[in-house]
């Protein structure tokens, strides 16, 4: 493998919760429990999982929006989580983010030009004004936005148009790496395809690397090169997209795949075991999926399985897969 563009090593994230005034306990929420991923340049690395699995926390930690409790984050072999802000600024220009809800991620009182110029002004302050204007116009054109939008405010645009503007903002500093956190989930069905196509085109034109965070496996199947399936702050399975859909190894991955509604119908007729995510404050000792897992035995409840590489190249954290 070539040199990864982004890598995490043993990444952990813990959040202290408010303490009850009569209690001595200090509850801690474990959002990430030792996540190792390495993202290759030019790929679309997808992270899937249900709410509370830590997928958004992972994206935010990589972007430096949250400081990890333990572990390392590397960008082109350089450790960035401990870097001071002055050193990190030019690296922030290389790493940008697109958020889920374009109604929340754009400042309602700032026009499109100022929204797009802000990252350059802040991260690359030496850029001359003329170049800023040029760059804003070029990313607007690249994302299918009309140049006349520059003086308009976010409320004048539809959801799909806003998400294009948010993508343009992420591109304006010419980044190499983009974290897209559920970028199409808030959009209407007919608009989702437009935005996915835009992301595909931009990747082809600019050689972008994506970390694509989503709960929707059918999007992953179409869009991803590799997938990490997360559950309660851990990677349960990590594999090439084709492998994960053809031969899902982890019981949780299989559960997720079975839950996708199918156009031909029939999959809601099968009996299914009701399940809930365990409490991320009081994590089970063994495998976090054991309480819902049909294969769970005494070992699963006692010992947390580590991610290991199987014969077909898939990595899975399960005592029962081969």
């Amino acid at each position, binding site marked *: 493998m070539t040199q990864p563009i982004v890598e995490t090593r043993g990444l952990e994230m813990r959040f202290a919760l408010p303490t009850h005034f009569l209690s001595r306990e200090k509850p801690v929420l474990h959002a990430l429990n030792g996540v190792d991923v390495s993202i290759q340049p030019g790929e679309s690395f997808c992270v899937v999982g249900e709410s509370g699995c830590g997928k958004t926390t992972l994206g935010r930690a990589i972007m430096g929006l949250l400081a990890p409790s333990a572990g390392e984050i590397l960008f082109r072999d350089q450790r960035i989580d401990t870097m001071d802000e002055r050193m990190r600024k030019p690296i922030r220009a290389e790493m940008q983010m697109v958020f889920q809800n374009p109604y929340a991620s754009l400042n309602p009182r700032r026009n499109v030009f100022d929204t797009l110029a802000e990252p350059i002004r802040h991260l690359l302050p030496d850029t001359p004004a003329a170049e800023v204007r040029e760059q804003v116009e070029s990313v607007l054109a690249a994302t299918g936005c009309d140049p006349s939008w520059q003086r308009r405010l976010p409320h004048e645009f539809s959801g799909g148009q806003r998400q294009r503007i948010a993508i343009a903002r992420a591109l304006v500093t010419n980044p190499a790496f983009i974290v897209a956190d559920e970028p199409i989930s808030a959009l209407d069905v007919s608009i989702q395809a437009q935005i996915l196509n835009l992301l595909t085109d931009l990747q082809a034109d600019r050689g972008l690397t994506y970390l694509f965070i989503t709960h929707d496996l059918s999007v992953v199947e179409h869009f991803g090169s590799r997938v990490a399936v997360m559950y309660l702050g851990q990677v349960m399975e990590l594999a090439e997209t084709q492998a994960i859909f053809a031969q899902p190894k982890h019981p949780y991955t299989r559960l997720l795949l079975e839950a996708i*509604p199918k156009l031909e119908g029939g999959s809601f007729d099968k009996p299914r075991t*009701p399940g809930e995510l365990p409490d991320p404050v009081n994590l089970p000792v063994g495998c976090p999926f054991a309480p819902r897992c049909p294969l769970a035995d005494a070992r699963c409840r006692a010992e947390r399985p580590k991610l290991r590489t199987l014969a077909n190249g898939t990595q899975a954290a399960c005592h029962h897969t081969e």
Partner: protein
Amino acid sequence: MAMLEVQDLHVAFPRGKRDEVEALRGVNLHLEKGERLGVVGESGAGKSMLAFAILNLIADPGRVSGGRVMFHGENLLDLSERGIRGIRGNRISMIFQDPMVTLNPVLTIGTQMIETLKAHRKISDAEARKLCIERLKQVAIPSAESRMDAYPHELSGGLRQRVVIAIALLTDPELIIADEPTTALDVTIQAEIMALILKLCRENDVALILITHDLGVVAEVTERIMIMYAGLCVEEGRTQDIINAPRHPYTAGLLKALPQKAGRGQRLYQIPGSMPPITALPPGCAYNPRCEFAADRCRATIPPLAGGVACFHPLQEEEAAS
């Protein structure tokens, strides 16, 4: 006589002092006992408006400006507030998207359930409690007796939605109207809840109107579908017929745009543009600016719903398949 027959239903909202805009522009619907109908559309298409109008729940300043809602031959729109209360929440139940909005946060689950039951039945507290526990068990809520004393915030999202379904079933309704019942839930929980709704409808011969934007969910659960666009039904028919051979270009576009329809890394089919707001509808067919088959006639006249499709150039079977 059909159980529910909606005829030429119009809903209007004031615009300025004299003018009005129509959110529903003449919708027809019929539903037999025990039948499951999906209503599909993007946000703003009028699908929730249809549900509210059926139960005469359109809030000021909106109003039902025309049409009839015949339930067992009786027009629900003519009933007094007292009269409709005998039907709403009793013979017709509703399930909304967000269970936290439906449930009262300061009352226990038991209190809310017993209250609902006693509003519609002459029943003793002890009997009501027994029936409520039975319903909670029916929707697979573990330790139902103790959950009766729990508050909504003590339950997970999936359990809350189960409670809402249990409440909807309390009065043995003939029809359940479910408005995006699983949109706020995770995929695996969505599969469980939809499987539960499907099973309960089948077992108790309850009719269902399922409002959703998700074609996969509709395919799994319903027998017939109605596709809505800008306040009108543009296509209706048997679910599998429409999914296999859509005849309206909009339906065909929606289906073609699904990520599972394209190979990995390929561009998706995309419908250009977005749905016009009801305040700025084009003359003629509302879909004409986005439609590849639009002709002069489409830009002048609204196509009537004929043979299950409201289009002057409906697709033939071989076209739809390609």
